[in-house]
């Protein structure tokens, strides 16, 4: 079985954003659980945070293919 070390590196690099996205949605869920009426406000913030954390993972996969 052949492969590229880039992909192993990308797998390792994806741990960080994975943990980050998990923390963001954990905070979002507990926020909505405590105060269900704040859902619409929290949703936008959670998706924004998700997008910013996910950018790292996405740039990682770009570099894994490009380098």
């Amino acid at each position: 079985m052949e492969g590229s070390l880039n992909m192993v590196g990308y797998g390792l690099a994806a741990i960080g954003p994975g943990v980050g996205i998990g923390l963001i949605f954990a905070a979002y869920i507990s926020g909505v659980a405590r105060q269900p009426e704040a859902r619409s406000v929290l949703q936008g913030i959670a998706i924004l945070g998700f997008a910013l954390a996910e950018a790292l993972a996405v740039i990682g996969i770009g570099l894994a293919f490009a380098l």
Partner: protein
Amino acid sequence: MPVALTAGETEEFEAPGPADFELPPAFEILGFGVTKPMLIVVAATLLIGITFYIAARRAAVVPGKGQFFVEGVYGFIRNGMVPDTIGREGAKYVPYLFTLFVFIAVLNISGIIPFVQYPATSRIAIPLGLAVISWIIFNYVGIKRQGLGGYFKNMMFPPGVPKAIYPLLAPLEFLSTVIIRPVTLTLRLTFNMFAGHLVLLLTILGGEFLLLHTQGIVGFAAGSVSLLFSIVLTLFEGFIQLLQAYVFTLLSAIYIGGALTHEH
């Protein structure tokens, strides 16, 4: 970098890679090759234009199904996203943001429409062009509102920060606003579509290979699971595609809103 996986006795599985996105031109006009993503962009533009023209022309007080759908999407941007991010002045930017959202959403969704099945936004030129338009708009709006000096002063030297931090903060803020923002807008959309399409290719082609080109019960079982899983992943990919269109538009709106206000 091709990854070869020995799954059968005789044949080898060629894993999908970036080369699967490099399609040959469908036809040529004056030596200029027209590729599938270009055709998708043209078709999407026509589809969006005609749909909204028809919906707006026959606008009724009591909306029908089509008008209700179009107005729902428009209201989602106009009454949901823009007031939250830009505020009272946002009405001027609703047409741009609405067009951006619908255009990106349709181009993304082309990745899971049967027989089209190619997310046009996975070619970097398309998100790059859209990100540059957003970049020009939010910088223009900021310079027009705060003046050239004021815009960069508010960007690089935000008030309420200790003086000693400024040498560190000013270049970082400049870099983040002027360079990182368009780059991340582009890369986020491009590689989300690229990676999502690659995963779909992998589950479908891998499932087909295991099912038809290997012997034994293990290959049959794994191929069936892979193909069934690809259906779930296609639905998930549709959700991601709409979400990414929303994220691109939301970030554009936030950048415009940030350029309009003095302290951010």
